[in-house]
């Protein structure tokens, strides 16, 4: 079971969904904080869901206030980076770049992509955490090879 968990985790890293930062988080998990990573991930998804809906509203309005969008995205990027959501982070960067040059079309496109990545990551992580809980106490996090 634990091997399965490890495999899933490994694949997340390999596929680029997660990066080093996630490992750091896992290292913070210990007896005092047994579910730290999952807690943080939950917080992240809650926060980011809110951000996403804000951005969505802003985009739907069609006014394209790039500054504001950039601000939202900056926040989003910040938390994505903290949790190690690598693909999501990449999309954030791209979105901000489009904002910077004022490319509305690019923003919309990127945002769609970003939402997709975000949803995928969420699903995968949920799956991962579920398995991990079933598997029992995890062994110390190891850096993915």
């Amino acid at each position, binding site marked *: 079971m634990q091997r399965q968990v490890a495999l899933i985790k490994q694949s997340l890293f390999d596929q680029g969904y997660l990066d080093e*930062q996630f490992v*750091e*988080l896992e*290292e*913070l998990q*210990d007896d*005092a*904080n047994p579910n*730290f990573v999952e*807690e*943080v991930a939950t*917080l*992240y998804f*809650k*926060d980011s869901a809110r951000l996403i809906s804000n951005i969505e509203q802003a985009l739907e309005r069609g006014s394209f206030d790039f500054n504001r969008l950039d*601000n939202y995205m*900056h*926040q989003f*990027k*910040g*938390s994505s*980076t*903290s*949790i*190690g959501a690598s693909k999501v982070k990449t999309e954030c960067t791209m979105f901000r770049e489009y904002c910077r040059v004022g490319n509305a079309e690019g923003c919309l496109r990127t945002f769609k992509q970003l939402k997709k990545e975000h949803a995928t990551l969420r699903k995968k992580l949920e799956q991962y955490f579920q398995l991990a809980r079933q598997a029992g106490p995890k062994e110390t996090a190891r850096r993915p090879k």
Partner: protein
Amino acid sequence: MTVERQDCVALDQFPVGMRVLAVDDDQTCLRILESLLHRCQYHVTTTNQAQKALELLRENKNKFDLVISDVDMPDMDGFKLLELVGLEMDLPVIMLSAHSDPKYVMKGVTHGACDYLLKPVRIEELKNIWQHVVRKNRGSNNGDKKDGSGNEGVANSDQNNGRANRKRKDQYNEDEDEERDDNDDPSSQKKPRVVWTVELHKKFVAAVNQLGFEKAMPKKILDLMNVEKLTRENVASHLQKFRLYLKRISGNQQAIMANSDLHFLQMSNGLDGFHHRPIPVGSGQFHGGAAAAGMRPFPPNNGILGRLNTPSGIGGVRNLSSPPSSGMFLQNPTDLGKFHHVSSLPLNHIDGGNILQGLPIPLEFDQLQTNNNKSIIAGNSMAFPSFPTSLPNNNNHLVLEGHPQASPSAFPGHQINKRLEHWSNAVSSSSSTLPPPGQNSNSLISHQFDASSSNYSIPFCDSTIPLNPALDHTNPRAFYRATDLDSNANVQPGVYYDSLQMRQSGNYGPTTDAMLSSNPKEGFTVGQQKLQSGFMGGEAGSLDDIVNSTMKQEQSQGDLSEGDLGYGGFSSLRTCI
């Protein structure tokens, strides 16, 4: 992990248990940060609101050793928080951001950050942040020796306390070191922090002005101030902060003068949000000039008021009367708006003035009070120490700003007075600690009125603001502030004064008039300078009175709102008093 723990433990307890306050609006990052800090064996308190953080800090200055704050926060700019904490509490602050842009880092440095970390934060970086606490302590403890030289030794990222201790020993005498080293509580290592109360700051400003800003040296300032238990180092570090502050707010303008005082104090006091505006206080130039120039952002009222208070300020105020000044105030209105939000007073926003709206003063005043209590300044004008009471400052701003729109030169004097009254009322209402104005306020108010009526100098006073009762709230405070400087009685004015004085390098007294009118008043004060002197005396207790009267005024004012309010207000004020 285990290794880390051992490392920490090996360090004589400190930095283990170092108390950190973490501020970040992003819950995810905050949670991670908290966990990382726990891993370093620090004692962590978290909050996702800058306002809350300031409250926590003000509540007890000695509760924390270090603050880590995010840069982008919705309720307050991280840099502003940084400034405030640095000025008020003199705690090391570390900035945190996902922005790696050098501009931000530079901004962090100029605002006084000890360090700037990029997100995502790594635990290795956090393991060394304790060095900033030690560095700061050494700086303040080590007055005679060259400041900073001692710190160097400690600054390196060597976590080995022993080594740091040894280095320190080299630089300081053994006793000092030992005292510092063997505390498990980092805070006990430092000398008790000097609380820069309004009172103290006023003295400081006066001394600086006397010496001349450029020539002000800590030793001389210390001598002039003649305060027991104040060390040269304390003065030196305060001077440094002050200079930075001035530079920041005034840019090209004469940062030195008076305005910075209020602003400075305000900043220190943690005027939330208000501070960020640097008050272009030019010395003597009455805000009019300065304001016009720099006022824009309108630094915490303090700055403005400060200007007003000082005699030079008053002179400045005079300027206000001239058109330029009005310009200044006008600008303020925006700022005022900012201040206003705070007011607990029932200020209705001032027409155009926005000053009174939500007078921040009342709130601040409360803060002041708290601070005052803490700070010792008994009954004094707002204890500077915590500056947090930005109230006075805010008021100042408000005062100044609110009026821009005020009825044009209707009765500048009146307005100011009115404002003042309100302000005082507001103030008194908000701040329980205010020394019972008693007669003073009355005298003050009356003075003000007189002054104001006579001076119409300040055109802006006429602006809509003055009339609004709301304004008064603000004004009273402002007024008080100014007056208090002399009297020490009113905390609020104190704040203004300081800034004013600083700028003006004069005494605060005269400005009171201007200040009183709260926003517009300030302008008037200038004109009223003469009055101010008169007021000043009265102010000290009058603030409360004024506030009370203003409050009353407000109620009775309905008509006052028009330009003539000033007078109307005054009279009622008088009666109230």
